[in-house]
C-alpha cells in the first residue's frame, strides 16, 4: 500500500504505541490482545478446574444407585452450575477470548484488535461474571440445569436470579468480543490478505463472531425477561398469568443452538491449522472449509426447535426442523472429509498437538452421528431427556471443543511462552484423557437407550455397573487434566527454547519471535497467497527484519 505524498502521518498499521511500563498496565489492565488472550486462558482454565470439580461431585454421587454423597438438592445445584460454567466460563471464553485474541490478530498481520480498550473491558466482565455465577451457591444455586426452564426456574432460590445476572454479563462480554473481532477481521487485514487468503482459523472466528453478536443478544433478552419475572413478578413465562414456558424454550434455544457453534467453529479452525502443519500437506478443500463454516453459522439459526420435539411443538413444525438439522450436518461432514483427505498420504508428525487434533476428528464425528439420532423426531421421542443426550453433547463438547482447546494449546504454547511443552507428559495426557473420556461417556449411550434419565441424583440399580465404570473413568480423565497443568508449569520453567517457528508452520504468527514483541510486527507484511502450500516459498513480503536486530518501529506521537 503506497503512501501518497499528500498523506500526513501513517495509518493504523504505522501507528505504534510505546509499550506500557509497570505491572498493572502491562499485565492486569493490559490492552494488548496477546496479554488479554493469555488472561482469558488462565481465567478459563481456573473455571475449568472449578467446573471439573463439580463434575466429580456428580460422578461421585452416581457411583451408587442410591447416591448418598450429597443431598438431592445439592446435586441439582451442582449439575446446573457445572453445565453453566463449562459452557459460558470455559469453552466459549477459551475459544473466542483466549485463542481468538491471541492468535487471530497475529494471523491477520494486524497490530491489535480494532478496539483494544473495549477488549480489555470485555475481558474484565468475564471473571466478574464467573464469581457471580459461583457465588449463587451462597444464596441457593439454580436447580433447573444450564437450560433453566420455567416454571422450575421461576421457583428456584435467589441464586437463580444471580445466575441470570451472571450469564447476562458474560453474554455482554461475548457480544462485545464478537463485534470487536468482526471489525478487526473485516477492516484490519494486512495488505494483500484478501478474504480468501485468510488462514482457516481466522475464517472460523469470522463465522463465530456474528453468532456471538446476534445469538447472545437474543439470550440477553431471555435472561432479562426471566430476571424481571423472578424479581418483579412481570409475567412472561408463568402459565398461570398468561405467560408461556415454551416461550423461554424458543428464546433460549434460539441462542443456544448457535452457541454450540460458537463452541465448535473455532475448534474447527484450529484443527484446520494443525492438521496440515503436521501432515506437511496443504489443507484439502480450503474454500469448502471456509465456506462451510459460514454456512453452518447461518443455518445454525434455523434449527433451534430440534431441542423441543417433546415440548409440545406443533407436528407441522417438527418436520422442517428435523430436515434442516439433517441438512446442517452436511457442511460438518464436508469438513470431516476435508480433514481426512488432508491427512491421507501425508508425512504425519505425531506431536501432542497433532494427537489431540486427530482425536478431535474421531470423537467429534461420533458426537455428530449421535446428533443425527437426536435430530430425527421418532428416535428423539425415545431418547430425549436420557443419558443418550448427555453422551451426545459430551462427545461434541469434550471430545470436540475441549480436545480442540488442548490441541490449540499444545500448538500455540511455544508462541505464547517461547518454550516447548513436554512431549512425554503431553502424550500421557492424551492417552489417559482419551481412555478416561470414552470410559466416562461411551456407556452413557446404552444407558440412555435403556432409558436412564438425565439430571437425577439416584437411579435404578440395574444401571449401577456402568455408572461405576463411568465414575472411575472420570477420575482418570481428571488425572489426565492434572498432568496437563503439571506439564504447563514444568514447561514454563524448564521447557526447551522454542525459537520463532518450531513447527515450521506457515501462517504469519510463526514468522515473528516467540513470544512476539508488543507491536507484533516491525513492518506490517504484504501477503501474496494462501499459507498452506508447503512446497512453495512463503507468500509474504516485508518480514526480513523480524528475526534480526533491526530497530523496532518508533512509537507515534500523541494523536
Amino acid at each position: 500500500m503506497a503512501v501518497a505524498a499528500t498523506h500526513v502521518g501513517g495509518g493504523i498499521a504505522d501507528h505504534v504505541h510505546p509499550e506500557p511500563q509497570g505491572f498493572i498496565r502491562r499485565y492486569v489492565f493490559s490492552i494488548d490482545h496477546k496479554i488479554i488472550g493469555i488472561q482469558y486462558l488462565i481465567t478459563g482454565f481456573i473455571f475449568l478446574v472449578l467446573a471439573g470439580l463439580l463434575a466429580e461431585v456428580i460422578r461421585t454421587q452416581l457411583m451408587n444407585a442410591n447416591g448418598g454423597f450429597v443431598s438431592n438438592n445439592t446435586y441439582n445445584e451442582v449439575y446446573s452450575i457445572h453445565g453453566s460454567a463449562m459452557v459460558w466460563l470455559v469453552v466459549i471464553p477459551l475459544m473466542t477470548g483466549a485463542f481468538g485474541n491471541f492468535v487471530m490478530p497475529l494471523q491477520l498481520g494486524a497490530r491489535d484488535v480494532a478496539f483494544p480498550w473495549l477488549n480489555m473491558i470485555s475481558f474484565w466482565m468475564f471473571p466478574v461474571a464467573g464469581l457471580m455465577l459461583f457465588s449463587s451457591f451462597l444464596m441457593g444455586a439454580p436447580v433447573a440445569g444450564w437450560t433453566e426452564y420455567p416454571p422450575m426456574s421461576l421457583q428456584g432460590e435467589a441464586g437463580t436470579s444471580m445466575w441470570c445476572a451472571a450469564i447476562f454479563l458474560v453474554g455482554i462480554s461475548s457480544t462485545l468480543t464478537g463485534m470487536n473481532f468482526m471489525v478487526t477481521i473485516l477492516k484490519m487485514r494486512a495488505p494483500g490478505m484478501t478474504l480468501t487468503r485468510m488462514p482457516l482459523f481466522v475464517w472460523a472466528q469470522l463465522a463465530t463472531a456474528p453468532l456471538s453478536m446476534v445469538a447472545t443478544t437474543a439470550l440477553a433478552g431471555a435472561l432479562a425477561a426471566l430476571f424481571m419475572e423472578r424479581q418483579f413478578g412481570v409475567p412472561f413465562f408463568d402459565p398461570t398469568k398468561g405467560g408461556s414456558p415454551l416461550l423461554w424454550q424458543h428464546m433460549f434455544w434460539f441462542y443456544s443452538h448457535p452457541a454450540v457453534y460458537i463452541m465448535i467453529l473455532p475448534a474447527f479452525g484450529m484443527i484446520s491449522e494443525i492438521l496440515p502443519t503436521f501432515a506437511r500437506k496443504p489443507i484439502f478443500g480450503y474454500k469448502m472449509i471456509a465456506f462451510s463454516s459460514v454456512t453452518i453459522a447461518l443455518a445454525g439459526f434455523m434449527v433451534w426447535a430440534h431441542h423441543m420435539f417433546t415440548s409440545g411443538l406443533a407436528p407441522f413444525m417438527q418436520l422442517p426442523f428435523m430436515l434442516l438439522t439433517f441438512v446442517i450436518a452436511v457442511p460438518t461432514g464436508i469438513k470431516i472429509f476435508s480433514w481426512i483427505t488432508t491427512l491421507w498420504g501425508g508425512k504425519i508428525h505425531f506431536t501432542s498437538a497433532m494427537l489431540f487434533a486427530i482425536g478431535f476428528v474421531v470423537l467429534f464425528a461420533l458426537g455428530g452421528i449421535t446428533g443425527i439420532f437426536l435430530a430425527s423426531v421418532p428416535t428423539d421421542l425415545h431418547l430425549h431427556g436420557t443419558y443418550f443426550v448427555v453422551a451426545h453433547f459430551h462427545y461434541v463438547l469434550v471430545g470436540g471443543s475441549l480436545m480442540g482447546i488442548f490441541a490449540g494449546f499444545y500448538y500455540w504454547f511455544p508462541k505464547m511462552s517461547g518454550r516447548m511443552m513436554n512431549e512425554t507428559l503431553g502424550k500421557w495426557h492424551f492417552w489417559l484423557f482419551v481412555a478416561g473420556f470414552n470410559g466416562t461417556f461411551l456407556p452413557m449411550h446404552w444407558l440412555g437407550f435403556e432409558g436412564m434419565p438425565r439430571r437425577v441424583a439416584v437411579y435404578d440399580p440395574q444401571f449401577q455397573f456402568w455408572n461405576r465404570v463411568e465414575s472411575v473413568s472420570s477420575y482418570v480423565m481428571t488425572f489426565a487434566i492434572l498432568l496437563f497443568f503439571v506439564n504447563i508449569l514444568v514447561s514454563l520453567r524448564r521447557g526447551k527454547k522454542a525459537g520463532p517457528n518450531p513447527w515450521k508452520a506457515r501462517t504469519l504468527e510463526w514468522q515473528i519471535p516467540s513470544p512476539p514483541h508488543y507491536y507484533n510486527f516491525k513492518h506490517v507484511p504484504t501477503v501474496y497467497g494462501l499459507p498452506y502450500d508447503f512446497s512453495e516459498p512463503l507468500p509474504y513480503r516485508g518480514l526480513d527484519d523480524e528475526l534480526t536486530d533491526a530497530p523496532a518501529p518508533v512509537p507515534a506521537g500523541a494523536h
Partner: protein
Amino acid sequence: MAVASLPHQHAEHAEGGVDRFYEETRDLRLTGFLFFLFSDVVLFSAFIFAYLYLRNSGQSWPPPGIARLDVAFAAWNSVVLFGSGATMHYALENWKHGNFNKYAGLLIATIVLGIAFLGGQAYEYTHLYFVDKISWAGSGIFGASFFTLTGMHGFHVAVGIVYLTVLLLQSIHGVYTKDKYFGITAGTLYWHFVDIIWVVLFSIFYLI
C-alpha cells in the same frame, strides 16, 4: 484496507493532506457502531418476538379486562419523535456545511422534541396506571410486553438525549471540526435507529 482514495475536499486540511490515522479509525468506529446498533435491534427483536408469541397464544387481544390503547395520542407523540428525526438529519447536514448556528439550533430542537416525546410517554403511562389500572407486573402479558418494550425504547430515547446534550457541549467546545465529526455522525445514526424502532413498536402495539 481501502484507505487510498479519499474525497478531495480534505485537501485544505491544515498540513495540506489527510490524516490517515483518523480516517482509518473512523472507519473502524463506524463499522463497530453499526454492529452495535444491529445487536440492539436483535435485543428489541427478542422482546418483540416474545410479545407476538404471547399475544398469539391467547384468544383475544387486548386480553379481557384490558382497555384499548389511546391510538390518537400515541400518533401525535410519534409525530413529535419523527419530527426530531428530521431536525437531527438537518443538524448533521448543517454541520457538514459549516453552519454552526443552524446546527446548534437544530440539535437543541431535537433534544427538546425528544424530551417532549418522553413527556408524552410519561403522560400515557400515568394515564394507563391510574385511570385504566394497567401496570407492568399486575396486568398479565399485556402489561409485561407493553411496558417492557416501550420502556426499553423510552430508555433508549433518554440515553439519546443525554448523548445529544454531550454532543452539543462538545461541539461548543470545539471537539469536532469540519472534517472530524464522527461523534455527530454516530449520534445521528443512533437517533434514527431509535426512530425506526418506534415505527415498529407503534405498528405492533397500536395498529394491529
